[in-house]
């Protein structure tokens, strides 16, 4: 048996034998643990390991097949989110649940009082929020609109929202995914203060160094099972990684590329600001044959717009695109495909695949009108099927048949199909936007291997990723994006994590301020 936590106090939360299945998938398999007062427990695991499912059970969003949840000695009725809230359990979701057009104060008190609250109550609420933010270092302007706040500030509002409801147990789901390194440090300081005051925290993450830095105890989930429980003080990254992944990790072998000439070029691109998407400001970027250029940055700093432009879904308001030295006039997804750009989009379900169409229909979608798949306006489904079978074989896609709907595939298998479709015909330019998000380790290293192979046969690759480790592991050259601006490219290993973090936070841009007007 793994060592239990040291404190002898009665646990504030106890999960016992939680099991839940979705169809054939065992999402949580007999998971038990407890949480003590003033403790930070990290829930570590790959995407798909069952972390979020477990928390959804704890919260009453899902009902476990078997197992019980106890908070402060009383059993929580399954499937009743209100009971979890009542028991003092609060959660800060990865994707914030704030109303953009309301103020911080309104968001925090939303749902806790009647709509027609007299001013007296508002004042009391304001006072309570002021006290909470002073106590825990969560400074934020209570009268600011959410839409005007930075991501880090929004997260503070989420935490305040939970504290305002007097939570005793706080769950944070991947809280650092959207934060810069310095914002992360501030968050950690706050969390330490919270546990000093007697709160208990569950911290969900897949980043090893973070869970080591913040938690007292680490629960490692793997494939829905509890792979191990470790005291943070007595473990290290290697041990955690081994537990998390199970069998030995096959690190992607990186060999430097041999860059050739520039094949793709963005010249002084500027876009209009739209809600939720920062504008690109005078962005220029060269992609060279046989080279992986990594684009690092915190989510929401213009990556989506940049990616949409390269994919052909958007045309910049100013600036131009040059391919092989020729300026591009007509730009569309079809034009991008015609210029031999292989595209791996960020969101598999929203734009990468048509979930309700079958595998054959999905793999031919970028070339359905070509003579290869159609003649006289009639589709040649035999050719389509052969192509699907080829991808399924070459990319090791696990599926019962090419006739099933894409919706029924796992994320990794769906990504392999997209990869097969994008890399078909050996594209000279490849855009890979978050190509490994949500994939298990095996699939990640597979995708990495394929990208490096493509580079070695001369493709120019732009790798966009919010995972700095991935960018550093795979790129010949790194560019950082922050608030719609690009940093100067740096060579592989030239900048430290710290220095890249500074750039991601928006410091040290050569043209800082000059484009404010």
């Amino acid at each position, binding site marked *: 048996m793994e060592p239990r936590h040291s404190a002898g106090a009665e646990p504030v939360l106890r999960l016992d034998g939680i099991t839940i299945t*979705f*169809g054939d998938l065992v999402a949580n398999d007999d998971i038990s643990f407890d949480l003590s007062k003033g403790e930070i427990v990290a829930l570590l695991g790959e995407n798909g390991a069952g972390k979020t499912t477990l928390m959804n059970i704890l919260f009453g969003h*899902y*009902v476990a097949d078997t197992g019980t949840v106890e908070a402060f000695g009383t059993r929580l009725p399954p*499937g009743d989110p209100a009971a979890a809230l009542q028991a003092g359990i609060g959660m800060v979701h990865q994707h914030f649940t704030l109303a953009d057009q309301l103020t911080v104060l309104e968001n925090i008190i939303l749902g806790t009082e009647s709509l027609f609250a007299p001013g007296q109550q508002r004042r009391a609420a304001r006072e309570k929020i002021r006290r909470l933010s002073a106590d825990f270092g969560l400074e934020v302007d209570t009268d600011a609109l959410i839409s005007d706040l930075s991501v880090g500030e929004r997260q503070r509002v989420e935490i305040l929202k939970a504290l305002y409801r007097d939570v005793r147990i706080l769950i944070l789901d991947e809280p650092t995914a959207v934060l810069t390194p310095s914002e992360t440090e501030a968050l950690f300081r706050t969390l330490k203060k919270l546990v000093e005051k007697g709160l208990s925290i569950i911290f969900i993450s897949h980043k090893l160094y973070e869970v080591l830095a913040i938690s007292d105890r680490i629960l490692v989930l793997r494939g829905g099972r509890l792979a191990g429980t470790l005291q943070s003080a007595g473990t290290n990254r290697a041990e955690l990684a081994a537990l998390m992944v199970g069998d030995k990790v096959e690190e992607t072998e990186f060999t430097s590329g041999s860059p050739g000439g520039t094949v793709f070029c963005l010249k002084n691109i500027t876009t209009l600001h739209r809600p939720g998407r920062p504008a690109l400001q005078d962005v220029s970027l060269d992609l060279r044959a046989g080279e992986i250029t990594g684009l690092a940055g915190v989510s929401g700093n213009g990556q989506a717009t940049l990616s949409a432009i390269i*994919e*052909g*879904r958007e045309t910049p308001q100013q600036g131009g695109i040059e391919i092989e030295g020729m300026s591009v006039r007509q730009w*569309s*997804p*079809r034009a*991008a*495909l015609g210029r031999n750009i292989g*595209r791996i*989009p960020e969101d598999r379900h*929203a*734009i*990468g*695949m*048509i*979930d*309700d*169409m*079958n595998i054959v*229909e999905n793999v031919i*979608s*970028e070339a*359905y*009108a070509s003579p290869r798949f*159609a003649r006289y*306006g*009639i*589709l040649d*489904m035999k050719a389509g099927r052969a192509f699907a079978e080829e991808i399924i074989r070459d990319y090791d896609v696990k599926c019962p048949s090419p*006739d*099933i*709907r894409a*919706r*029924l595939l796992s994320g990794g298998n769906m990504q392999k199909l997209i990869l097969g479709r994008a890399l078909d015909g050996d594209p000279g330019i490849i855009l890979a936007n978050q190509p490994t998000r949500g994939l298990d380790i095996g699939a990640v290293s597979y995708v990495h291997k394929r990208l490096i192979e493509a580079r070695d046969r001369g493709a120019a690759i732009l790798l966009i990723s919010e995972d700095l480790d991935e960018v550093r592991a795979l790129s010949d050259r790194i560019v950082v994006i922050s608030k719609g601006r690009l940093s100067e490219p740096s060579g592989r290993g030239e900048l430290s994590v710290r220095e890249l973090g500074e750039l991601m936070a928006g410091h040290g841009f050569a043209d800082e301020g000059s484009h404010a007007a």
Partner: protein
Amino acid sequence: MRLEAKKAPGLAQAILYPAGAIFATLVIASVLVTLAGASPFDVFYLVLKGAAGSQFAIIETLTRATPLIFTGLAVAVAFRAKLWNIGAEAQLYVGGVVTVVLGTGTLQLPAAILMPVIIACVLLGGALLLLGPAFLKIRFGVDEVVTTLLLNFIVLLFVSMLLEGVLKDPMGLGWPQSKRVIAEAQLPRLITGKRLHFGFVLALAAAFITWFIMKKSVLGYEMRAVGHNPEAAGFAGIPVRKVLIKTALLSGGLAALAGYSEVAGLKGNLTLDLSPGFGYTGIVVAMLAMLNPLGVVASAIFIAGIFVGADAMSRATGVPSYIAQVMVATALLTMVTAIMLSRYRIRWR
């Protein structure tokens, strides 16, 4: 309560789900029949007998099904691409107007030339009518449900104006009706002396051609892709707007054929009561067929049977024939539920 995606329904299920929906409809209708003071079994038996119990009944049902096949196809095509064409009624009337404008002696041509010319112009007329809403949707994001629905009233009033004005038959004793189409423009009867006409054959051909387009052609693939996920379709290089325009043209043309076939095949002239809501009923027909063009034929005959049978039943029992309207409307609701159940499994937890 949660919804879980299921595997694509097989052929057995594609039949099972509509059957279940129809059964549920009958159960619900029987409550109303009981309230009306009749025995549900008697009533349903009489409906069935009235719809298929004799040669006359069968011919009447197929005649009634003919316009429903066209409007059902129009809706099925549009809905497949998530273009919500609620305006088949208006497109039907445009088809009728074009038929009488060209077919009442304006063009003096042999039948072999006149008929294709009229059909081409009817297709064009219906297509152009839906082009407006499609353009507004694509260009300005105007909801086509609203525009196509409202166009129904506009077109009906417009037809009323025409029938009181330029299209009014001078020999019509003052009734708002058009002149009769000339012999060369008439669709022949399939059986001499019976009402079933060549329009039914055209409808079957249209169903087969539409099925072929949807299932086998590049256009059909594009329409399905756009219908399932326009974002992803656009990403893959499918010209979403062009596809929507093509869908609108096809759908509007098919609906207009309903008006053509009613005027040239059955009525002989255009009146304001050309359609007792065939355009709206087409929505039920298409949904019941799960948007499958071949299924549309079966569901159109089924729905037509309910209407025809209910008329006969009503004469025998005194239960109002409005029960048919209730059944058709209920069938839409149960079918929509069945379609959802065919794609998702409900987990009560």
